């Protein structure tokens, strides 16, 4: 059995060598993409485009405006006295936020009367808007005094952030990016493997050999597993070297989890390949089933705990979900297997189910 499996693997490798561009793409693309997007993507909200509407013109007004500008979060886009101009600024998106200092602000402050500032925000991007609001509140609190109104003291929080003390989004996003890119690579690698033989009629000749379904599938997957593992190792090394993703946990476990994840992805590709009649259908199904679900349902960008209950259930069929939890735990928290063994179970179950379905399908078509 091992000999026959190896024979298929060697045949597949020979075929791959003829189209070296495919191997090149499968190994180098993931690395290049991690490199590019690792730099490009971030959730840190900076360079917020700010308009200042100063209706007061006092020194206190200029002071609070200066506090906003020197905070480093805001880019000064313009100053105006007329609130009606704001619509145009915000509609076109030239400004995201406007600080309105009402007339009388300076006088109120000088007389120690309670007063207000207004912040007009473009709320369409709620996440950015929330962050901007928090920044603005901090700035206002830092330049204006508090007044004690009763005998009870205030409650304050001493925040402490673990694993990623400066809350850098790269450290959190890059592992997600690696998971996403590896999934696409794995599915794409095998999605055409069987259907291509079907379309070209070479499956007939394989049928004439004493090959069993399982041998055929393992033989076809093996070369791609090697290629995808190389891609995984290269992208994780890059994440560690360039993006300060610390690898705090054990490398051995990292390898085990990654290979399990890749097996799931490759298995899914093979399953598509056995189901589809034409390469075009295989192509569409594999992109549709891997691209968006891996990005949106895995916890890569959007937290799973915020999704509706039903969707949290659905997310269990997305293997990236398990891989990401385990990957972040190993890489960022340095946690041992007792913390994430459930994720390993998830990955194993996924790979087994997908693999046996694919084998069953192949038995039928042989």
């Amino acid at each position, binding site marked *: 059995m091992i000999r026959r499996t190896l024979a298929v693997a060697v045949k597949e490798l020979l075929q791959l060598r003829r189209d070296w561009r495919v191997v090149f793409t499968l190994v180098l693309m993931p690395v290049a993409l991690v490199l590019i997007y690792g730099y490009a993507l971030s959730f840190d909200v900076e360079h917020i485009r700010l308009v200042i509407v100063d209706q007061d013109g006092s020194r206190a007004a200029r002071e609070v405006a200066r506090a906003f500008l020197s905070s480093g979060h805001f880019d000064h886009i313009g100053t105006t006295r007329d609130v009606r101009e704001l619509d145009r600024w915000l*509609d076109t998106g030239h400004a995201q936020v406007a600080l309105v200092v009402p007339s009388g602000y300076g006088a109120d402050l000088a007389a120690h009367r309670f*007063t207000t500032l207004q912040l007009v925000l473009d709320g369409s991007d709620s996440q950015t808007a929330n962050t901007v609001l928090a920044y603005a509140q901090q700035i206002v609190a830092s330049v204006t005094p508090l007044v004690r109104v009763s005998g009870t003291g205030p409650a304050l929080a001493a925040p402490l952030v673990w694993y990623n003390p400066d809350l850098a989004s790269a450290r959190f996003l890059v592992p997600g990016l690696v998971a996403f890119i590896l999934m696409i690579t794995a599915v794409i690698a095998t999605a055409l493997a069987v259907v291509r033989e079907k379309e070209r009629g070479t499956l007939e000749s394989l049928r004439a050999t004493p090959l069993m379904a399982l041998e055929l599938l393992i033989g076809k997957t093996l070369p791609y597993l090697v290629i995808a593992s190389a891609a995984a190792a290269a992208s994780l090394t890059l994440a560690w070297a360039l993006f300060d993703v610390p690898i705090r946990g054990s490398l051995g476990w990292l390898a085990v989890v990654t290979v399990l994840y890749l097996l799931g992805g490759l298995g899914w590709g093979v399953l598509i390949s056995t189901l589809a009649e034409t390469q075009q259908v295989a192509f569409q199904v594999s992109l549709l089933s891997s691209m968006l679900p891996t990005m949106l349902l895995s916890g890569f960008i959007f937290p799973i705990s915020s999704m509706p209950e039903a969707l949290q259930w659905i997310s269990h069929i997305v293997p990236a979900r398990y891989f990401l939890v385990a990957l972040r735990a190993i890489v960022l928290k340095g946690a041992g297997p007792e913390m994430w063994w459930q994720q390993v179970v998830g990955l194993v179950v996924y790979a087994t189910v997908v693999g046996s379905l694919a084998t069953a399908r192949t038995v039928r078509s042989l």
Partner: protein
Amino acid sequence: MRALLVILVKELRQLRRDPKILPILFLAPAFQLVILGYAATTDVRHVELAVCDLDRSAESRRLVQRFEGSTYFRVTGRVDDQNGLDRLLQDGTARVALTIPAGFAAERNAGRVGTVQLLTDGSDAMSGSAALGYANGVLRSVAAAGVRPLVELRPVVLYNPDLASRNFMVPAVLSLILMIMTMMLTAMAIVRESETGTLEQLLVTPLTPGHLILGKLIPYALVGLVEALSTLPVALFWFRVPLRGSLLTLLAFTVPFMLCNLGLGLLISTISRTQQQAMMLTAFVFMMPQIYLSGFAFPIQNMPKGFQLVTYLVPLRYYITILRGIFLKGIGIEVLWPQALALTGLGVAILLLARMRFRRRLG
């Protein structure tokens, strides 16, 4: 003109012959939007909170109740010892840990500052920082009893007053789905004919490359428009994203966007030699950059300058701006003309490029 008609009929017949393709084309987009529209939420809710109350006063219990009562937190663990918090954070039971030190109530009653400790799991930077913000909000509402700031900041939120991320994300997910669906349609169109050898047959007919390209483009543009029409109701009536601008403008802007993606598909199809290459090119070179550089989840203004320049080549970037503008801000062509112009320009350029490549390949 007749030649064009002939090839159109041929393409439509071919499309009809593959029974598996039709459900993919017409049902998948709406179905995906229903599911993924829910997934794309940046509102951080039900953050898992672990509590360690060392004060055990009425006041500390009230503080914990405040946390429980807010929709932002869900208490998933209580420990009597701060060391117990480590484990809860490490295995992911909790993402935020609140410690109320002994003497918290006494300090505040004496008019001094009572400090609690908030421990956050930063490995998920986004929900980590959001959770810190919410926690500060809860504390501020408790603290408000004692002091009042002399200057109050009053926020006025335009376009999306309840700051619901769904209103922002659903239009973007809709455009992602349209992009993927339409680019897929044409990415294999020509390479398949050349791999199966039928391109040779087409070449001996009096059809010109222009005819072939248009013949591949027009039927799929129709399919794309039907897909747009089947997903828009999902956004409007299922997710109830407010449509403040004109539906007609939105559809009009959809046409150049379709052209761009179908054109990109054709371009891929003329560059690649095998269907496998076409697939890799589509996924890695044409789809991913569009997704990540479009500003759908990662704001463009946060990117390094060089990347910001590259985003001007991304059709999806313009379409997402257009959709969000029409849906949420209710603006129209008077504000969005630069985006419309860019999309049309890109579409024409891509199609010309595809036609050029195609002719060279035939020659």
